[in-house]
């Protein structure tokens, strides 16, 4: 175990930034989101939940896929993909919480499965992930439901933060390499403090109201029954059809592909899409889901039934609680789990 | 200064667009000093327009113009003949060098009918 005094963290960031791009929670106009670090920015590791999750790093909200250059009557297709590893351009994603780290695993299963999404892969391969353990979870957190240990997240490097130090432990080769890069700033020690923090946090997690949600009903064999459940109508009644839950969700991975006309031709880009939107998966014949209830159902069925049935039971919810906090009308996945999840929720 | 430059200078000094003149002669029709002027107000405009500035620079009229602005007031085209007269007068004075006007030189060149106000303004202007 290594450690660095809190007041020296800026030196750590600067050191990493010398040779790598550093993405870290930064406070801007009152809100904390992952952003590129540079000298003078207000880093906020203490913030439990960034508004947007770190998925933005590998799967940006908008991303150019290719360009079509037009000259007279000719069109040239330009590949804009970049192999960052090949270019030697590497990144560090710093301060990822356990839930968000788990979410990256969920995304990997989508984007890194055949056919591999090379845009995602290029960014993913070039990035070293530094996770940060939680010490002050709040009532909307329910990662434990998904067997996530918020006190000891995985990642290339795991860190813990208390009032004096950031504790540092490399887990992988990438992690070791990063540790080597900053080793001059780190000192030995901290095992005791980390253990103490873990214990204290676990006590709080036990007390969290959602820590014992019952997911037992969400099994592939119950798919039809769940799909037909009459409760969807009532649960979705207040849904505005906005994309807040989707866009703050660390595991939502749907995107739309669109064209943008430039002076030279066209940029084809992808951007996050939301299954809550009425034009989601719009096809020539119209839309397969025409009511907000259907769209609402789709989102939660996907998280809790469809995805796990195709990924060895891995839920595509990680219990980060962002949707619980951010839904304008206070609808969320917890209500769905409580309504349809299993007997033990009552 | 070439003649062209001088013409341009006169146009600029006067601040009036002599090409706007439609040659109606209303300025001269109203001029109270018409008889004393060897070159009439409308001719000032016309001659500047036609580039005949040597005659203007040598004329007596510039000293007889009362600067009463009646011609400016009456002109239906917004031309200011008095401003042209003034511009010529300034040019002549400046050509004389920096001598300006001396108090003792005033009596011989003016008569008692000239308004006091004009004398004061002329003195202020040419005696620098």
């Amino acid at each position, binding site marked *: 175990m290594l450690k660095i005094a809190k007041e020296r963290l800026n030196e750590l960031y600067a050191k990493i930034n010398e040779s790598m791009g550093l993405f870290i929670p930064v406070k801007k106009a009152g809100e904390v989101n992952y952003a590129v670090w540079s000298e003078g920015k207000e880093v906020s590791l203490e913030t439990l939940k960034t508004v947007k999750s770190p998925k933005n790093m590998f799967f940006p909200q908008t991303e150019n896929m290719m*360009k079509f250059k037009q000259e007279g009557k000719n069109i040239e297709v330009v590949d804009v993909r970049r192999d960052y590893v090949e270019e030697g351009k590497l990144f560090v994603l710093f301060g990822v919480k356990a839930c968000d780290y788990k979410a990256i695993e969920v995304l990997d299963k989508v984007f890194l499965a055949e056919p591999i999404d090379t845009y995602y892969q290029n960014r993913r391969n070039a990035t070293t992930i530094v996770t940060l353990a939680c010490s002050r979870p709040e009532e909307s957190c329910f990662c434990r439901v998904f067997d996530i240990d918020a006190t000891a997240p995985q990642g290339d490097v795991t860190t813990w933060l208390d009032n004096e130090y950031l504790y540092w432990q490399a887990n992988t080769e990438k992690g070791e390499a990063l540790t080597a890069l900053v080793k001059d700033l780190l000192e030995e020690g901290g095992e005791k403090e980390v253990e103490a923090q873990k214990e204290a946090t676990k006590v709080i997690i036990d007390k969290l109201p959602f820590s014992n949600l019952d997911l037992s009903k969400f099994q592939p064999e119950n798919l039809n029954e769940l799909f037909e459940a009459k409760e969807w109508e009532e649960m979705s009644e207040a849904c505005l059809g906005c994309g807040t839950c989707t866009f703050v969700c660390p595991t939502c991975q749907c995107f739309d592909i669109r064209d943008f006309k430039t*002076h030279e031709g066209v940029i084809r880009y992808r951007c996050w899409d939301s299954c809550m939107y009425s034009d989601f998966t719009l096809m020539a014949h119209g839309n397969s889901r025409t009511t907000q209830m259907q769209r609402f159902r789709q989102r939660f069925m996907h998280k809790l039934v469809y995805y796990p049935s195709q990924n060895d039971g891995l839920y595509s919810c990680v219990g980060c609680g962002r949707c619980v906090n951010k839904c304008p009308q206070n609808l969320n996945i917890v209500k769905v789990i409580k309504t349809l999840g299993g007997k033990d929720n009552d | 200064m070439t003649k062209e430059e001088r013409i341009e200078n006169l146009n600029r000094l006067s601040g009036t667009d002599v090409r706007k003149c439609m040659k109606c002669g209303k300025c001269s029709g109203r001029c109270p000093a018409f008889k004393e002027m060897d070159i009439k107000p409308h001719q000032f405009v016309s001659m500047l327009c036609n580039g005949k500035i040597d005659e203007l620079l040598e004329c007596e009229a510039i000293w007889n113009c009362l600067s009463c602005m009646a011609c400016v007031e009456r002109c239906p085209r917004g031309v200011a003949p008095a401003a042209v007269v003034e511009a010529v007068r300034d040019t002549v004075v400046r050509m004389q060098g920096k001598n300006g006007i001396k108090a003792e030189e005033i009596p011989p060149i003016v008569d008692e009918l000239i308004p006091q106000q004009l004398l004061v303004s002329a003195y202020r202007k040419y005696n620098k």
Partner: protein
Amino acid sequence: MQEVTEKKEFTPTIVAFCCNWCSYAGADLAGSSRLTYPANVKIIRVPCSCRVNPMFVLKAFQQGADGVILCGCHPGDCHYVTGNYYTRRRMALLYSFLNYMGIEKERTRLEWVSAAEGARFSAVMNDFVKQVAELGENKRLTDLRVKEGE
């Protein structure tokens, strides 16, 4: 090595929306009277100034226009009776709002130019081009993507 120091003077791109009945005709009159204005002013013909949607103004800025001017019949003279009265309110609010967002107020303008005011059309355009040129390039409301590759 000889350095090319020739500096290209900034010529702004100006989009002018002109109503068919007054201002477009005024522009025609400016043309037939041979009253010049800079070539970077390009006119889009619309039936009435009230056809101009704020979306068009924003679109122009997005596409890299440095100034947008809207011309219509004088209030009271609208070919469509009341169209330009609505234009006047819409644009008053839009221009004020854009400025509130920090967009330079000199980039937007509305002028009433009648079919008989060729000279005014030319004068207005000259003045607007000068005003925008002094301001420089539109950087605040442009979409960087459209200029990619430049």
